[in-house]
């Protein structure tokens, strides 16, 4: 009982709770100011996310959001700011799509081959900024971000010219053949099999982080790179490793989004989805821990699916969900809390949400 009380007290004064309330209040105010009805919008958002086909869609959308959050969190946890999730997802996704479309063979072989191809190309793309930092001392923060625009251009060119489906007016590849599609599981009316993959990744990362030397070493590098180096950890090698794993997951998710959802690689579609950036916000809010990432990812997915329902039924643009998500992170990063502290740095342990290790 005491434990329960202390837990609820902690939740009450937690910056995350406050930030969520703050974000919802601000969102409601924005809706009201722009001429909408915040209560109706909120109701549509909630029912849209969990009732009817909403639950299936929430689970489906959570796959890329959680996946991209895991992808960037691996680097964040080591203090490496990988903003290149988008590029890794897009370029890996196209590689997987090419395999799915052009490789002949039975589905049980094509689907895994396509996923592996996506992961490998995503990892290779992530190696560019990784080696840029370890060999040339170029900050990953900047190079990984700039490479997103290069990845957009490369994939845009490929689907517009060599890979273009000339039978339609869109700049797109051909459709992924039926045998090469990611199967759907018969739960909640059809959720992609990739959900299992994402759950496995969550469990795997949790095990690696809590039970292995590699997990410990990568986190030490995140806390303090210099002391990690003194402790005999090869920081450069770890940098490349975490970037490669993150890029591979990005490529997996990109491939899933085509062979499991869109079925065509349409120019600009993956970028527009914003999954890489939503995932990044999830990783920040969950402080890079796999299980909180899973929960937060489901929550953010629900916000977006609910947002779409709100747009249909209450006439309020679903982009409000994006505003909400960003405001939560801004508020958490400002360490806003009900019990305001005059020494914000002293309670860093408690409020380290939305921090990148010790950046």
């Amino acid at each position, binding site marked *: 009982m005491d434990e329960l009380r202390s837990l609820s007290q902690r939740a009450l004064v937690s910056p995350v709770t406050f930030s969520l309330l703050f974000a919802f209040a601000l969102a409601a105010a924005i809706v009201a100011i722009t001429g909408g009805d915040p209560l109706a919008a909120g109701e549509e958002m909630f029912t849209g996310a969990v009732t009817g086909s909403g639950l299936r869609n929430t689970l489906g959308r959570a796959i890329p959001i959680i996946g991209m959050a895991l992808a960037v969190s691996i680097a964040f946890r080591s203090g490496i700011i990988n903003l290149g999730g988008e590029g890794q997802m897009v370029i890996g996704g196209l590689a997987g799509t090419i395999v799915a479309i052009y490789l002949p063979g039975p589905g049980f072989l094509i689907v895994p081959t396509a996923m592996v191809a996506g992961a490998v190309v995503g990892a290779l793309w992530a190696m560019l900024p990784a080696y840029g930092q370890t060999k040339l001392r170029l900050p990953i*923060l900047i190079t990984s971000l700039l490479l997103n625009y290069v990845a957009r251009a490369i994939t845009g060119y490929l689907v517009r010219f060599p890979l273009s489906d000339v039978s339609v007016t869109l700049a797109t590849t051909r459709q992924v053949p039926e045998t090469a599609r990611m199967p759907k599981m018969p739960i909640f009316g059809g959720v992609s099999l990739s959900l299992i993959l994402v759950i496995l990744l969550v469990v795997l990362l949790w095990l690696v982080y809590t039970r292995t030397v590699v997990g410990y070493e990568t986190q030490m590098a995140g806390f303090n*790179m210099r002391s990690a180096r003194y402790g005999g950890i090869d920081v450069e090698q770890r940098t490349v490793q975490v970037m490669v794993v993150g890029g591979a997951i990005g490529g997996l998710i990109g491939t899933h989004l085509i062979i499991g959802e869109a079925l065509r690689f349409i120019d600009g579609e993956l970028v527009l989805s914003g999954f890489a950036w939503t995932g*990044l916000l999830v990783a920040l809010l969950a402080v890079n821990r796999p299980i909180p990432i899973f929960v937060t990812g489901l929550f953010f997915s629900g916000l977006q699916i609910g947002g779409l329902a709100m747009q249909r039924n209450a006439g309020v643009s679903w982009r*409000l969900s994006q505003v909400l998500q*960003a405001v939560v992170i*801004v508020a958490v990063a400002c360490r806003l809390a009900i019990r305001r502290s005059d020494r914000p740095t002293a309670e860093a342990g408690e409020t380290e949400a939305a921090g990148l290790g010790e950046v």
Partner: protein
Amino acid sequence: MFEQIFDTALFDSATRAMIPILLAALGGMICERAGVFQIALEGIMLAGAFAAVAGSYLALSSGVGVIFGMAAGMLIALALAYGTVTRRGDSIVLGIALNLLAMGLTGFLLPQLFDVRGVFQHPRIDGLDRIAIPGLSQIPWVGPVLFDNTIPTYLALLLVPALWVFLFRSPIGLRLRGVGERPLAAETLGVSPTVYKYGAVLASGALAGMAGAQLSLGNVVQFAENMSSGRGWVAVVAVMLGRAHPVGVVGACALFALAEALGFRFQGNGLPVQITDALPFVVTLIALVVARKRFARLLDLTTAG
């Protein structure tokens, strides 16, 4: 061949490409000098572009539009200043989140306020006029490129020497640099780091907001979703490459702008738009590799210790 590519029209389009990047980069430079890592420029520019179009639409005046753009930029900058200076939050996390906030907010307000998706064009939106400076605009080559432009363009070009004087020849500039380089020493001498950092971040908000206004009311007269399309990030790189020095920053910005203008030109010659769009970013990456010895400090800042 050479003369066919490097003509007045090319430099004219390079100037237009440069001004938004330059305005944002000068703001980033002031922050860097005050010891604040400013990576919210992309979002501030986007918010500025939206607010400028909204202001111009409401008041039928491009001047009001520019003021709206600057105010919106300063509002986001205020959140950054409060978070990093007062609350001692992580400037990188805040910068990323504020960029995404600007993306979401402009994407939300566009259909909500103007009932359009993607692009907002309207005869009510008053664009920035080009004002030819009598005499100077008659100079061959340089005249039409530099002296027949919008007010934010002249302001950006004047700010380069003005900020040099401010930073290196004025007492306030000296104190600002002191706050950035030796915050403790500055504080001991009675210079409040809080005041100077707030000032620097707010100034960068006003400048990057104006950059957005130039983008949406000067270069074109419309707002398109995500129309800043990476220019704010290029400005962040320009600050790094230019070592936060006005002359270096303007040089870096000119390089990127020339790449953008060349890309545009090659597009006319049949090169696919996807390739030419990537040109400024490829040039930026190459410039980073060439000048890599310059930013060890940023690397230390972004890799935890």
